[in-house]
């Protein structure tokens, strides 16, 4: 069973840095595990806490939010504002008893294809260690 389990991980990433970085990993054929599905937004500032909570209630085992490095956001400071909200969501997750490590925010630039691959590897590993989200079980 444990061997069979494929985690459901949602990546919500900004168009200008992390999405471009993920594309670069592709051009360079840098291999990483396929257990992530990507939703593209223009900036991590767009990421409403609602999106993350919705993903977890829908049964996601992990969520990755990734944007530009601080100071590099295409819209100046969307990532600061996005990051602040992620702290909020993390404390919320703690309060409802869900491991906050299931949510991760990273900063991957358009030139960091290799870093993107590493980030996905890490996230997949963490989620594997945590196992299936308890919410999925509860809602059954």
């Amino acid at each position: 069973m444990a061997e069979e389990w494929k985690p459901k991980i949602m990546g919500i990433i900004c168009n200008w840095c992390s999405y471009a970085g993920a594309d670069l990993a592709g051009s360079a054929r840098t291999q990483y595990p396929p257990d992530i599905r990507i939703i593209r937004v223009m900036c991590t500032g767009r990421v409403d806490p609602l999106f993350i909570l919705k993903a977890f209630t829908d049964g996601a085992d992990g969520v990755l939010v990734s944007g530009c490095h601080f100071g590099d956001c295409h819209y100046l400071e969307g990532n600061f504002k996005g990051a602040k909200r992620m702290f909020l969501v993390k404390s919320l997750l703690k309060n409802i008893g869900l491991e906050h490590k299931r949510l991760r925010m990273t900063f991957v630039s358009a030139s960091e294809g290799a870093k993107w691959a590493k980030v996905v590897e890490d996230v997949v590993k963490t989620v594997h260690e945590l196992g299936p989200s308890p919410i999925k079980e509860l809602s059954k």
Partner: protein
Amino acid sequence: MADTKKNKKESPAKKVVKVEGVPQSFSPKKEEEKKQARIGVLICHCGTNIAGSIDIKALEEYTKTLPNVAFVDNYQYVCSTPGQKKITDAIAQHNLTGTVVAACSPRLHEPTFRTATKEGGLNPFRFEMANIREQNSWVHMHDGEGATEKAKDAVRIAVAKASLLEDLIPKSVLVEKAAMVVGAGVAGMQAALDLANAGIKTYLIETLPTIGGRMSQLDKTFPTLDCSQCILTPKMVDVGRAPNIELMTYTEVDAVEGYIGNFDVTLRKKASGVLSMAQAEAMGISGGGCNGCGDCEPVCPVIKPNDFEMGMKPRKAIYISHPQVVPLLYTIDFDSCVKCGLCVTVCGDKKAIDLEMKDEFVKVKVGTVVLALGFELFPIEKKEEWGYKRFENVITSLEFERLICASGPTGGHLVRPSDGKTPKKVAFILCAGSRDNTGIGKPYCSRFCCMYSLKHAHQIIEKIPGVQPYIFYMDIRSFGKMYEEFYYRIQDEGTKFIRGRVSHILEDPATKNLMVHSDDTLLDQPFRLEADLVVLATAVQPSVDTDRTRKLFGVSCSMDGWLLEAHPKLNPCGTTTAGVFLAGVCQGPKDIPDTVASAEGAASAASIPIHMGEVELEPYFAQCIEEKCAGCGMCVNLCPYKALALIEKEGRTVMEVTEAKCKGCGTCGGFCPGGAIWMQHFATPQIIGQIDAFLLGGAQ
């Protein structure tokens, strides 16, 4: 044309398809618009790029089972003309409301397929892309099953979004008929001249008191060996004279607002302490202002090293860097000026000097911008094993250029800094700090060092009878037109080439000679040389103010700090910020021919929007759903562009968006506690639709 009209009539910009969470009043819909979404999906093989790892047949069969899918097909190359025709034809044949292409990255082909969607009679923003190449088949090449499952999910997510997309009309904005070029090295000068010659008013901004950049410090240029100043000075003079160029030296970019077509740039004119003749005239000092006579310089008591001469020649606190400066205007270095006033006295009636001058801020509006920020040398003293700054007779290549140059500190006599003697054995060390993976130097090739070191070897043979140059190299990269031929010529002239990396250099304290320790990897034995002079072909890095400047314009950089182009092959002069272009070395090391070519490319690209007169902005604006807006105003402060404001409407306070200022980041929409902000194309119900499709959705 007819198509666009039809689109417009049926669904104006602000109308949305009914989706949960949007009140009727925001988007009153006519009955016919309520029709069920019908999505057409095209799956691309991309030769074997996608089909090699993803099971196209299985993906297609799966897609057929998805809700709202009315048509599915696959094709070898969907981006080809027949591939695009499949999209166009399917729209009419299957009465589609939206299209999805599962292929490469939307960053590559979204515009292509939007056009095809438009040609088929749909609004182009009813298209969505599933990235199954860059973010799937290419990164899961050995996991066909995992890749195919991921592709199924990606298509399902894209179909969900396409089902919820709405018609959008891009916003056209007028383009200011002026351009700005930042940095006036050979790249910036060429770009400014091209723009000016194309009839465009161009502001050329240079942080130093003179234009010319690094090229003006060089003696000769490979492979033709023409004198650098001789070919550059006429260009500098042209720049100074061109009626369409407004040259602003000793000036920095302080702030940037706006977007393509309408950049509002605030410039800081640093206090130079000296009035130009035009400035003096404007202030009513007739016949006054600096005419470059230089009377002030001898009386100035302060002595400082001249950076242009790499510190090997002194200058005063009031100075010009070299005789060919453009504009010919003295500058006071206020960091070292003691304000004794002697210069003011000798300047006399010209009244050119103002010791109390302050920085001045000016605002200009331009349609497009070219960044040409150039480079500086890597601080090679960090590679301690070569002894730069510890041993007097170890110099950098730029110091060599000044020493060998007739207008340089020694009048063109190459001498040893320790004793002023002419060197007889000179070692040139290539890749000094370049191609260095130790973490101290730079991993990249600096591209012009091989060639200029060959040039340097030639120059000393030409000038110093009996001299023996040694070149320590890893590889000789002589890739340009007539470059390999130049390499042969230098070999024939008698330069000795030693293939090996220099491990360390020691100095003989008595003679100040240098023991160069290397391997000769061709003979497979250690090689030692006692040299009189060592020249380090030093790595280059982005110039000091590059990082601050690029951030003002929203331009990204590569890992090594060079500015990032929009696409390395297909858009090397563009950036991801519309209307901002790159020229010269700031994008990555380039010799002069490549620098000038890139500058001409950037100028041409920057002139296009200006000549078009209008550009379209992607309509990803925020909209306020007034029924839901409580007028709290939290969003107003979140917006980095001041695009949002609270207004009174029908007795209530609500938020209003100024579309021209909104850049579509969605930061407001990510926070609105009432869910009252509708981010066009990235609306909350559309994103929630994607999330649900991923986690809850599946085959019907």
